[in-house]
């Protein structure tokens, strides 16, 4: 017995030794421990000051001359919206120099600790609701000597930024293209083009061309062909990125941001006057939380004493679970939020006050399942229905009608049209609203 026992132990030991196949450099940031795969790291260094470069993103500290090679330096605290740390002038700061597939760059962290070797099997997926850092930038968590390390996916963090830049480039070139004289006269209606577009939008973006959005798609197609011919490119969509570019002008105003004063006032005017005792709002496809929080604030402004409840749901687990802790940057926080104490200051921006958060009820939910909600006064589903297949589209519109109280209002995307007997068009300015009749 004892010999078999020893053998097993030996094997186990061997396995422990063999299993160390992942080394990472660990560092601390705002009192938490993080790790970066050592294969992504060129070197570590201490730097006293960086050369400031004007007109860059807020998290870029400047550039640094590393033995003749100029590399950009990024402050990880600023990038993740963590509170800034006071440092006396002349302190040497710890910098990790990364070698990513396309770029070299340096990141400033609080303190570089050590290199540790672990088994890649011991890395666990990060729980969906996890930390200050967006989960898509975390490749996992690992425990080592009673410390929990969050492993950052640096390729993803910095490549994502690159992507955003590429998109910006695209918008620039498009604006230029529009300024140039039109060389090609595109036909107003092109059925073959439309059919092709319908197929590729469905494949790449899960966007379904139906009566709801067809007129926008046709107009956009004409415009798109001009843009593409100006940059001497084929108009056909070849990948997701191009499909996203095609759809970039589809989205309603203030998608992915808090609504500004004017857009908010337009909703306030849309809502019925008088003293309503209660207001129920259903926000389908609430995404990262900008829409439901905008709705919560404007509802409170409109009805200061009412019992307000916003049902906000989304199919994207990550988005909706991070939505409750939405943080606004200083420049993206409209003044009316601050003036009405709807937000509280954080070192890196603003978060919503508990009184606003309590109005919103976030759910991970598929609207095609059973919707167990009371009758609604307002349903907001901007740019949502177009991403459902045609039969689901009509099913959801019917469901909305069903769930609306008498004279209730349905708001869809500014480029979407609802054709349903029970709805009449109420407003088609920046807001496209329908009323239940």
């Amino acid at each position, binding site marked *: 017995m004892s010999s078999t026992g020893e053998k097993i132990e030996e094997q186990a030991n061997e396995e422990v030794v063999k299993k160390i196949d992942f080394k990472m450099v660990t560092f601390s940031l705002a009192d938490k421990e993080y790790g970066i795969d050592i294969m992504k790291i060129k070197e570590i260094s201490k730097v006293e000051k960086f050369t400031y470069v004007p007109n860059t993103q807020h998290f870029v500290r400047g550039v640094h001359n590393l033995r003749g090679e100029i590399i950009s330096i990024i402050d990880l605290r600023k990038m993740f919206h963590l509170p800034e740390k006071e440092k006396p002038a002349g302190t040497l700061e710890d910098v990790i120099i990364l070698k990513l597939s396309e770029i070299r760059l340096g990141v400033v962290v609080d303190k570089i600790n050590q290199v540790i070797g672990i088994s890649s099997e011991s890395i*666990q*997926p990060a729980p969906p609701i996890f930390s200050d850092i967006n989960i898509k930038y975390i490749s996992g968590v690992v425990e080592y000597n009673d410390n929990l390390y969050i492993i950052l996916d640096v390729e993803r963090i910095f490549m994502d930024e690159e992507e955003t830049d590429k998109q910006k480039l695209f918008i620039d070139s498009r604006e230029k293209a529009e300024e140039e004289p039109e060389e090609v006269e595109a036909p107003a209606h092109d059925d073959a083009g439309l059919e092709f577009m319908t197929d590729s939008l469905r494949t790449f973006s899960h966007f379904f061309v139906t009566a709801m959005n067809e007129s926008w798609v046709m107009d956009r197609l004409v415009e798109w062909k001009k843009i593409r011919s100006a940059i001497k490119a084929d108009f056909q969509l070849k990948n997701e990125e191009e499909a996203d570019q095609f759809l970039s002008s589809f989205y309603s105003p203030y998608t992915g941001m808090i609504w500004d004063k004017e857009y908010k006032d337009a909703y306030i005017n849309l809502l019925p006057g008088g003293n309503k005792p209660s207001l129920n709002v259903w926000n389908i496809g609430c995404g990262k939380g900008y829409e439901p929080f905008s709705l919560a604030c404007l509802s409170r402004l409109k009805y200061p004493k009412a019992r307000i409840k916003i049902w906000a749901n989304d199919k994207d687990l990550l988005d909706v679970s991070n939505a409750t802790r939405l943080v606004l940057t200083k420049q993206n926080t409209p003044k009316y939020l601050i003036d009405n104490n709807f937000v509280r200051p954080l070192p890196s921006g603003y978060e919503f006050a508990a009184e606003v958060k309590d109005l919103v009820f976030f*759910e991970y939910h598929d609207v095609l*399942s059973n919707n167990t909600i009371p009758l609604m006064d307002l349903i907001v589903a901007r740019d949502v229905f177009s991403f459902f297949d045609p039969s689901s589209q009509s099913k959801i519109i019917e469901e909305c009608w069903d769930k609306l109280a008498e004279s209730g209002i349905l708001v869809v995307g500014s480029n979407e049209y609802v054709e349903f007997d029970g709805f009449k068009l109420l407003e088609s300015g920046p807001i496209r609203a329908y009323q239940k009749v």
Partner: protein
Amino acid sequence: MRVEYINPFVESAFNILKELVGDNITRGEIFLKASSQPVLGVTAIVGLTGDVEGRVLFDMSTKTAISIASIMNGEELKELDELAKATITELANMITAQAVTKLSELGFKFDLTPPTIITGNKMEITDFEVEALIVPMELEHGKLEINVALRERN
């Protein structure tokens, strides 16, 4: 499913399985299901009642259930006998209880019903007016699906 409910279940399932069954656990993609769904063979049900009501199902094949029960008891079990069933019940109880403890720290109050075990082939489970959250856990010994359906009491 309110987002606040999700993580406590995922976390406690992961922690407890890791502690009792072993290190080799991966969590699959979480998803929602609304229609009727087949169950795998052995199902433990824990009911929840209070501010929020519903139930949690722990669904696995008979083979997986026997393996898990063997590890938890530290002896080789041959079939799904009383001991094996009691063990699976206990596992369900522990995971649910830890999740509920976490939720009550967040201010949600629940009571639990004693777990029930259902075994058999070709069974289906249907929930009315509530959507189920599925958390698949891949163990060395097979798949364990945690199926949570909760709703606010109106």
